[in-house]
């Protein structure tokens, strides 16, 4: 796992370092896949945070584990399992009313039970497929090794389709997310948009699971978006910022994972969380300064 030993160490020159990393084809593939996944996850996550559907997003990301385990058990490519289970899960969640909000006790109990049951199913598939136990960790916590060029192509095509669909529905979706009733009154198909968005979110989690692992997808979905929405209230700016943060976090995560024995999931979550904490701190600071200024101005007037 530790490729640093086979190559020269970190030289503090980003250009030569990147050149050195990219000398390995699998690292080039990892960067390509990571970038695609980061962009898609950041955009979907931005809408997810805006729509307050983080519990639904978390459930979807959990679904990818039994998906991959089931595909492995059946002897087909894990990619099929990821997409089939995540998009299927999205359709099921769309059928449960209002579940995305965390909701009342009863609804969240239902979601929690479904989540735990699906994870248990994943564990069952793993247990039935003996000798697979070592692979569980990479399934759950991600691995950037062994990403093939075909996989990158599939990821790119799916991401392009998902982003294309989102570009078409983006504006009404934003309207419906911010003010559902007004949007409904203006003839926006709120319900259809909500289902479409969940399916797109399912696709995004299926993609991201293949890089960060099932348990850490949620980090890539929620944290860049949450940080960006702390920093700016303008939709376009915060969407762009969210993508920027996600890509930056993924790249630094890949580089750090390349040079150290620890898995990429740890680095991606840690860097993303650091950005989120900094964003919150910056916002707290700026509101404190802003309030101070208002109070001071009031005293003068």
């Amino acid at each position, binding site marked *: 796992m530790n490729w640093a030993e086979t190559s020269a160490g970190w030289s503090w020159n980003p250009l030569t370092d990147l050149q050195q990393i990219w000398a390995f084809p699998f690292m080039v593939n990892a960067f390509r896949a990571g970038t695609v996944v980061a962009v898609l996850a950041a955009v979907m996550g931005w809408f997810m945070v805006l729509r307050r559907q983080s519990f639904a997003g978390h459930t979807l990301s959990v679904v990818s584990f039994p998906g991959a385990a089931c595909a492995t058990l059946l002897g087909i490519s894990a990619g099929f399992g990821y997409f089939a289970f995540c998009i299927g899960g999205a359709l099921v969640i769309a059928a449960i009313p209002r579940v995305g909000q965390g909701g*009342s*006790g*009863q*609804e969240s109990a239902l979601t929690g039970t479904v989540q735990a049951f699906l994870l248990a199913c994943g564990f069952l598939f793993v247990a039935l497929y003996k000798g697979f136990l070592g692979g569980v960790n990479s399934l759950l916590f991600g691995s950037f090794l062994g990403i093939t060029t075909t996989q990158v192509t599939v990821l790119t095509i799916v991401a392009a389709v998902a982003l294309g669909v989102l570009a078409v529905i983006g504006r009404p979706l934003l309207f419906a997310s911010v003010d559902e009733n007004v949007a409904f009154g203006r003839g926006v198909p709120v319900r259809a948009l909500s289902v479409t968005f969940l399916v797109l979110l399912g696709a995004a989690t299926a993609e991201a699971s293949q890089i960060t692992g099932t348990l850490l997808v949620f980090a890539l979905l929620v944290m860049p978006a949450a940080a960006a929405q702390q920093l700016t209230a303008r939709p376009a700016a915060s969407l762009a910022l969210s993508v920027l943060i996600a890509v930056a976090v993924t790249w630094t995560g890949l580089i750090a994972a390349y040079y150290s024995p620890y898995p990429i999931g740890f680095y991606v979550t840690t860097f993303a969380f650091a950005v989120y904490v900094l964003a919150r701190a910056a916002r707290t600071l700026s509101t404190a300064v802003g*309030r101070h200024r208002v109070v001071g101005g009031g005293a003068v007037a």
Partner: protein
Amino acid sequence: MSTVNPATRLGDLVRHRVPAQPAGPQPPRSPAVSLRGAGVRVGSRTLWSGVDLEVGAGEFVAVLGPNGVGKSTLIKMLLGILPPAAGEVRVLGEAPGRAGHRVGYLPQRRNFDASLRIRGTDIVRLGLDGDRWGVPLPVPARFSARRREARDRIAEVVELVGASAYAHRPIGECSGGEQQRLLIAQALVRDPELLLLDEPLDSLDLSHQGAVAALIGRICREAGVSVVMVAHDVNPILAWLDRVVYIAEGGAVAGSPQDVITTQTLSRLYGVPVEVLRTSDGRLVVVGQPEAPALHTDRHVEGGGT
């Protein structure tokens, strides 16, 4: 406590079906609420100060005023949740919060979640014994005098508020007016001498407003319970009121509705011209009443309401 005439207490009234005592000379009771020069602060902001108020036993008093002026804060101060910043406050002759179960409280209402699977009677029962530790032992009622007593008491108040038909349904499935009646029963279940009600008519439709107001008025008149009610609109309760307290920014005036809700008094209180109109059916309309100062950043400190 010693001066309270037990014959007029609510529990006895219901238990023995004694009709209300006709108005006449009664032994003097200590005032239910007395404020002298009281003031209150939330954070660094003084909501009001220098307020004098006396609520006699069995009186029905409404607390009125614009949004954000600190009406709910007054109730919280009487409950002892918020200390007064100045002045002296007595509730049933004791410091706020010391009178315990002699005070019934109905907070500004949130509706119960529609999926909450707990019966109305259980909500009422929490008012009776919810602050005791442990769980009730599963002893059948016929072996436990205390269980029987509690059960009968709950049945009484539920009947008093007219909620018997739906008290055994999960409270989340009850309508807003039904929930409000059950919550009044919860406030009444310990047989209080003082009821503190925070906007009990809010979020009810017009017909329910009248019915709930009549229920509270009847409890006040017949059982001799003092009532302090924060209200947004004085009209539904006008018929039952003994006195009103109008709070404005800084201070307050108290007196009978006819004296206080007038063009002169309110204009003086607010410091701007205000006009009180009386409609042909006796309703009062205040025109030109200023809203509270727009310090929205401080609103959440009060717990989201006034």
